[in-house]
């Protein structure tokens, strides 16, 4: 998938675990894990907002677009 999720990078920078983050933003650890491993199909703005608020970062720190993968898929 051409959109890369860098959630694990931000979580490591802020030194916060998956379970703690999921508790703070009100999402199950399973769903957060799905997001972290790049298996999610879509993300709601409300979820993105809560993640950015807790990790004190920008959406661009979490989401990255990989041009090469996108071209290969096409």
């Amino acid at each position, binding site marked *: 998938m051409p959109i890369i999720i860098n959630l694990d990078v931000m979580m490591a920078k802020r030194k916060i675990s998956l379970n703690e983050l999921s508790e703070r933003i009100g999402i199950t650890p399973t*769903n957060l894990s799905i*997001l972290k491993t790049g298996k999610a199909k*879509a*993300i709601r703005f409300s979820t993105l907002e809560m993640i950015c608020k807790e990790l004190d970062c920008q959406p661009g720190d979490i989401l990255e677009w990989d041009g090469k993968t996108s071209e290969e898929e096409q």
Partner: protein
Amino acid sequence: MEFNSKNRRLGVLTVLAIIIYIALILSSFFSGIDDFMLGFEEGSKKSTSMKEGKIQTKNLTTVYFLDLKAKPGYSTFPDSISNMKGNGKIAIRYDKAQAHYNDFTEKVANRSFYDTSQIILSLLTLVIIAMIPVFFIKLNVRLKKELVFDKRNIKNMRCIGVLLLLYYLVSFLQNWVVYSMNIQVFEFRDYVIQFEQADLIWVLLGVVVLLFAEVLSRGSQLKEEQELTI
């Protein structure tokens, strides 16, 4: 409350579908029961005569079931029949007939091939008739558990659709075998032997069910996307 009423509706529709299916099978069975009994009787008479060593060839006949069309046009009435409520004989033409033919002394070529084909096709028909309700019930059990957009449901629906199309194909082949046999044995002065078309409604049903399976498949994709939306 809503769950119960949905379940009740599903239950009612399921029971209705099963009743209609059984009625369809039984009506086909009873409409052909006379023909079946006639054929069975002829076959068992033949078998008994052969076992007792009393082969009276002149009495051995096979029943042929014919679909007829009067020559030369649609307004021809080549035969007559007595009308007990009116005046004497009236002009008539027949669409279906049963012919008793002594095919023991006058051997019919490829008879064993036709008989074998008929047996195999009849067995296939029975298998198809038995399998359709099995897949239908499997589908309903999962629907009652609220598992709608499920891969197994899609598979079950596709199986039902394919079986319905297969049923039409088998009916078509059976009719072709009967027709091939009949034109080999008979040629009538006033009638043309017709090829009986299998009922196209089975093709329509099969295609519609396959269409619904595709709709379910699309629904399943949407459900997966929705579940993987965090």
